[in-house]
């Protein structure tokens, strides 16, 4: 897969009520590397992810360049088709829409047609890797799923859709050690497929299973620090106040 680049310049974002959440952020991502976005609660990490996917709740200033194309005015479904993916922190349930149905529809929108048998075999193979019981695939997506099941189903979608860049918003939150290992294994596999990985996280725990190249630290809506994996260790020891 060709290397993809996402470059953000002087990006600010406001809510509909006019509250500024992100302020003048400039940074870049490449699909050949693994990134971590860290920062205290309320620093704007999730908002950044949503803004990159084009959530209409926010009005933005600045530019977002994806593979040399300006996408700040591109609607969400088009961004997904260009190869951006978001694994949600608390994904919403959609009663009556099964995991299989959603994923197959999404696949058809973002890829060429694939025969149902072939699609199902790929889906089941990835589900097995993530220790997802196949019965879950026929249930309404995220409807009554446990915290761990939700995270795994989000990752499963990334594995099937193989986007160019995937953002994981706190995929490690609420996972026990075993589940965390399985999720890390899945993310490493995704990386091997050529997908660029961006992990929003509070903890170094996940990063000990997934080698990270670049760490960005946000605070109060601003980019305050950029570093390598050692930066995550420093944060773990000293906290954000120690930076």
């Amino acid at each position, binding site marked *: 897969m060709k290397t993809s680049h996402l470059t953000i310049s002087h990006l600010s974002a406001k809510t509909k009520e006019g509250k500024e959440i992100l302020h003048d952020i400039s940074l870049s991502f490449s699909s050949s590397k693994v990134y971590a976005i860290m920062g205290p609660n309320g620093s704007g990490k999730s908002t950044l992810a949503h803004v990159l*996917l084009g959530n209409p709740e926010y009005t933005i200033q600045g530019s977002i360049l994806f593979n040399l194309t300006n996408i700040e005015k591109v609607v969400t479904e088009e961004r997904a088709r260009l190869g951006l993916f978001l694994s949600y922190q608390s994904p919403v349930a959609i009663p009556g829409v099964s995991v299989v149905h959603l994923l197959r529809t*999404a696949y058809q929108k973002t890829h060429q047609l694939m025969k149902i048998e072939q699609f199902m075999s790929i889906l089941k193979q990835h589900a097995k890797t993530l220790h997802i019981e196949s019965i879950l695939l026929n249930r309404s997506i995220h409807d009554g799923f446990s915290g761990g099941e939700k995270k795994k189903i989000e990752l499963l979608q990334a594995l099937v859709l193989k986007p160019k860049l995937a953002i994981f918003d706190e995929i490690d939150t609420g996972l026990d050690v075993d589940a965390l290992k399985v999720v890390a294994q899945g993310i490493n596999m995704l990386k091997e497929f050529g997908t660029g990985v961006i992990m929003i996280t509070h903890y170094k725990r996940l990063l000990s299973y997934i080698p990270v190249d670049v760490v960005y630290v946000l605070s109060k809506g601003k980019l305050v620090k950029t570093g390598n994996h050692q930066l995550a260790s420093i944060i773990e020891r000293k906290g954000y106040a120690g930076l």
Partner: protein
Amino acid sequence: MKTTFLPSPYAFGFHTKDAYTYKSKKGLHKEIVADISFQKGEPDWMREFRLKSFDVFSKKRMPGWGPNLSELTFNDFYYYLKPIVSQAQSWSKLPKSIKETYDKIGIPEMEKKYLSGVSAQYESEVVYKSVQKTLTKKGVIFLDMDSAVREYPELVRRYFGTVIPVGDNKFAALNSSVWSGGSFIYVPKGVKVELPLQAYFRINAANMGQFERTLIIADEGSFVHYSEGCTAPIYSTDSLHSAVVEIIVKKGARVRYTTVQNWSTNVYNLVTKRALVEEEGTMEWVDCNLGSKLTMKYPSVYLVGRKARGQVLSIAYAGVGQIQDAGAKAIHIAPETTSEIISKSICRSGGRTSYRGMVKIVHGAKEAKSRVVCDALIIDKYSRSDTYPTMDIQEQTASMEHEATVSKISDEQLLYLTSRGINAREAQSMIVNGFIEPVVKELPLEYSVELNRLIGLRMEGSVG
């Protein structure tokens, strides 16, 4: 954000050239009722039944509740049309214009795949019918009602009008006096009909009232699934459809009756459906109302024998200019009877849906149980949904559950689906189809596919 009120193009809004041998005068008089009976060559008892029903109809008042029916003028309609061919046993013998109509709906392909018997109604008369030999061998009778009156007069006379008496309501009385077509089914003791029996109804002339009459008798321990689908062409003047469906479920028998109603949006659809369920019998109504200008329909179960069960699953969709006043009735008259009513409604672009239901448990219906769930999905602020549940529980040991929810499509759900590459319009129809899925999954395969497609078509009209 702006919402426009453009109706979505009506997929089946075509019509073929009319070919009738007989057309009654517009309006309704005693002479017309007698003439209908004469044209059909009916026995005296049926002629008397029609005339008596007409008297009841004339005296009966319009319902004093529910949606406004003041624009409905009975004298604006034709009450009987007889197509050129009265009966055809095979597809090749049908006139071309009628064949074209059915080709557009797709009956022949469906027949090959799913149907064990086709009875397609072209206006008042059933003109095309093929009943598979196996059914006949098992002793199952599946005929249009007109033929049944001729061929099985005693069986028909014994049950006709017993579940829904003539005086039940004004529209039942109207149907009783001018009925034409519909199906008659008798399933003998212990016989299980594996494939659904189907009929397609279609109104094809302006101001044509359609008054089919269906009677199903499932003898002890038998099973049958009957399904009907409706598609109608668009006309500028209003059409009237008023059917009566009576079902008798004998001891230990089970009947499922599935309807997908998709009349064009100028049709008044005022239907009375009721089942009488004896000991340990089961009645299941699956009722989907997508079309019509105004529908009033409340499929009912009268649970008269111990451990009789009744279920009413329904979907109602109201778009621009539509009112769906639908619901269910469960009357528990015997001990240990159970009923379940699940209603899903969707309204958008100014449409109105109402759930109107009644559960009655009489004194002595010990340990009777009833559960009612009605969920409404309101797509935009121009649309409205109401719930009118009535509960009359006179038995101490009975139990009753009622749940009602009103929901909207959330921005969060739309974002989730669009972030997976699905556009906003498709995302909406996916959410709507998901909402009705618990009922849709109970439909035969071809119906569920068509229903999802129809919902998709209806949802296309406007997201502004």
